[in-house]
């Protein structure tokens, strides 16, 4: 477990230095752990487990948009679990549950039980429709059609810089909408 968390810390440091592949690997590594913990939280609170994927996506967005609050000299896991715990509690509260989520729920989640993603249509996808057209187009191109920033820029006759701005703004407003609902 220690090794796993050290690896996360290393990947995030690389990502902050500009290594996009390391960033991708980090998300791949933390997602199953977050998913297992979110499911456990939901099932404990008597909530339908198939809705927990929304929380996983919500946590991933927050990790991305708030990573400047992580101290690069500290291990990543406590920071990550604090964000996850916060999002999970918030989600359960919105559903009318007052629950205490133990931070150990995350730390103790073993990597050898990676549940598959459920196939319910996600809240993120629903909120995507309400974004301004430019942000939605860019997000759709990159997320759904897996186009690169370069190809997306070409497709919409935008500069790469403008695509990057629309991408980041789109992600930020997605998060704001998820919080506001």
């Amino acid at each position, binding site marked *: 477990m220690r090794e796993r968390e050290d690896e996360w810390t290393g990947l995030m440091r690389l990502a902050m230095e500009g290594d996009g592949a390391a960033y991708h690997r980090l*998300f791949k590594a933390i997602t199953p752990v977050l998913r297992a913990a979110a499911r456990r939280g939901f099932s404990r609170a008597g909530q339908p487990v198939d809705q927990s994927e929304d929380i996983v*996506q919500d946590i991933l967005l927050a990790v991305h948009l708030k990573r400047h*609050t992580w101290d690069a000299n500290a291990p990543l896991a406590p920071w990550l679990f604090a964000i996850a715990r916060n999002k999970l509690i918030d989600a359960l509260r919105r559903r009318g549950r007052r629950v205490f989520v133990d931070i150990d729920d995350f730390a103790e989640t073993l990597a050898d039980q990676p549940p598959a993603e459920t196939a319910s249509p996600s809240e993120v996808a629903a909120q995507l429709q309400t974004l301004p057209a430019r942000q939605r187009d860019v997000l759709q191109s990159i*997320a759904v059609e897996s186009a690169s920033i370069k190809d997306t820029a070409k497709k919409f006759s935008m500069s790469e810089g403008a695509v990057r701005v629309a991408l980041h703004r789109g992600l930020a407003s997605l998060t704001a909408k998820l919080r506001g609902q």
Partner: protein
Amino acid sequence: MRMDTDQLINTLAADNAHRSRPVSFVLTLALLAAAPISILMFVTEMGVRPDVMTAMHNPFFDLKFAVTLALAAAGITISLHLARPEASLRGFVWLLAIPAGLLVAGISGEMMMPQRLPMMTRLVGSNSKVCLTAVPLLSLPLLAASLIGLRHGAPARPAVAGAMAGLLSSGLAATLYASNCTDDSPLFVATWYTLATAVVTAIGALAGSRVLRF
């Protein structure tokens, strides 16, 4: 359209080049933008007391600034710390003991000196109402700025972070007000400044619980 988690991950990784400013930078910028508003309010409506040059030689006049600035500094430090999701108050609350300790030292110091006025008169003073109105009003622009700055962070406990924003903005506002106020007794400061600060802190906590969730 659908967006499954793998697609979301690809999208987040594509945005890796984006760099956000640290919370301290955004908070500083917001406070620097709001400070002129509070200063303008202060200068046009109140102004520095006319005998300020003599007052500066009174240690109890100077103590007011030590207390309010210590409060502002503690509020800034704690709220920046709490802008990190994994942060706890432990190890940081004692910073608030500095302004409180300065006040206690001031009160005991004043007790040991011969006084022209009885204790209750010094405590009640002559500006309590002004203090209770001016400090909260002057702190409002600063409080709004602090909340905007802290929104850039990820506080796990938004109400507590909001309360700290209240402390820091009332500390700064009280620093302005202290140069107008002619009541220099630490007893007056301990009573009325504290009450005014409590009001702002409560507003900050209430606002924080709404706007500081991330």
